[in-house]
């Protein structure tokens, strides 16, 4: 028997596998594919104060070994999430979720986090300061150390649950930003969000994505994500949730060697809706193959 249990800021997960925000909705679309209670947890769709339609379509483009999205934080708003999505989720998911919160001002982040902090169904709050698909918000916060620190302090002041800051890879050096979040009181870090990318449609000679650019994800970005998780985990003392192109149990283990305590799976859910189930089922076998008895033994050992 191997041990796959990991702990994020005192919250024990059966395994480190967490579908990433924006690829798993609020759970509804996946519950008919498999029993999602096998997951470590999942991070719900990035939620803002007001309901949002998001960006014009096309919002999706394909890349070699990946994809670009420019959804633009479509979500029903924090009040609808608390009043409708969480009660609905409770009917088929017994575990706590990762509450992914986004915003367009420091006040808005604090407003949403204060509300979601009161929900028993929430394990940790994941503050998204790195969405590449909205103007005047999202990534505009996450690419500046002082702004990241300000958001972190504002959110920590109004919450009791662990706060994880989700970082952008679209920076020259991610380490000072990670350290700024840690110094401002973050309980953990999630990284990486998507890389800013684009494609051009040869039939029109124009960008495929209506908003020109979007967030690049999928296996193609895995080595970049792994490198950043490694750099950040070496530089901070708080736990790191690693993500970016993870698609297999092998990828999960590699991320953990790089320093991740838990691992999120994003784009792969959209290609193969069963991927997290398959990863969780494979994880003990792959651990045995590489002589790993306890996942906690390998975190940051690369």
């Amino acid at each position: 028997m191997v041990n796959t249990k990991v702990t994020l800021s005192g919250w024990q997960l059966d395994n480190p596998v967490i579908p990433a925000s924006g690829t798993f909705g609020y759970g509804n679309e996946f519950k008919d594919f498999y029993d999602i209670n096998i997951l470590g947890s999942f991070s719900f769709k990035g939620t803002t104060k007001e309901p949002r339609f998001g960006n014009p379509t096309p919002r999706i483009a394909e890349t070699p070994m990946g994809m670009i999205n420019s959804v633009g934080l479509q979500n029903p708003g924090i009040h609808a999430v608390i009043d409708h999505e969480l009660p609905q989720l409770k009917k088929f998911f017994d575990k706590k979720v990762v509450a992914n919160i986004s915003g367009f001002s420091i006040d808005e982040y604090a407003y949403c986090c204060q509300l979601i902090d009161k929900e028993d169904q929430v394990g940790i709050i994941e503050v998204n300061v790195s969405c590449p698909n909205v103007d005047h918000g999202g990534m505009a916060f996450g690419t500046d150390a002082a702004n990241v620190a300000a958001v972190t302090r504002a959110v920590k002041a109004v919450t009791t649950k662990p706060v994880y800051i989700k970082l952008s890879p679209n920076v020259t050096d991610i380490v000072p930003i990670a350290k700024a979040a840690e110094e401002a009181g973050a309980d953990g870090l999630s990284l990486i969000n998507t890389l800013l990318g684009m494609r051009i449609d040869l039939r029109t000679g124009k960008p495929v994505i209506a908003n020109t650019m979007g967030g690049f994800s999928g296996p193609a970005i895995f080595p970049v994500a792994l490198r950043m998780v490694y750099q950040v985990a070496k530089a901070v003392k708080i736990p790191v949730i690693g993500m970016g192109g993870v698609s297999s149990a092998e990828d999960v283990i590699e991320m953990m060697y790089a320093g991740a305590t838990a691992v999120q799976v994003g784009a792969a859910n959209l290609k193969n809706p069963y991927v997290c189930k398959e990863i969780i089922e494979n994880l003990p076998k792959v651990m045995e193959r590489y002589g790993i008895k306890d996942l906690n033994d390998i975190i940051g050992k690369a």
Partner: protein
Amino acid sequence: MYKRNIYTVTENKKIAKDVFYMILEGDTSYITAPGQFINIEIDGFYLRRPISVCDWDDKTITIIYKVVGQGTQAMADMPAGTKLDILTGLGNGFTVAQDSKTPLVIGGGVGTPPMYALTKELIKQGAKPTVILGFTGKDDVFGEKEFKDLGCDVYITTNDGSYGTKGFVTDVIKNLSGYDYFYTCGPMAMLKAVAQATECSGQLSFEERMGCGFGGCMGCSCKTLTGYKRICTEGPVLLKEEIIW
């Protein structure tokens, strides 16, 4: 409800310019309505390719697709015997309007295939559909015989007049009377023209670039008068009255 399964290509042949006809053998139990689509994983491509169901029975799914890029070219090159990982049962599909007896069925180009299973269902439920199919030119035309074999009146239009009526499907619609409803699938400009050319109600099937095809990514959302809808889940078929053009 949707389901992933493995399917075997049993036939894959060209039927018009860049247009191919493929039969897939496997579990069809999740397909519940004409106008639904399947999402096909292709070796070497990250995202699946969503393709409408042309027809199905208890063992096979028929699709007709157009080569528009590298992914669909890879499909065209697949020999019989190829195994494919496919999600089926996606989208809402058409709902047969119970009070319509003489509907129009309008297909534009590669929007024609889903209208075939729909037409069969309409006939089965006692309606007498009139079929109008629009294409760019003679080399693009397919499906005329198949719809005629169902016993329908079939009108073909081509933009350049190289086959059938010269012009657009709306050039046929304006000379028809007695229809009480319509069902259509085709390019956006055609859908809009059809909605404007008809006074009756109808159902229109839309296309959008998709990430997952099952509602997980919100990649294909659109605004309607009845709220935000995902083309892959609450669509692809929308009611004329709810569409914001």
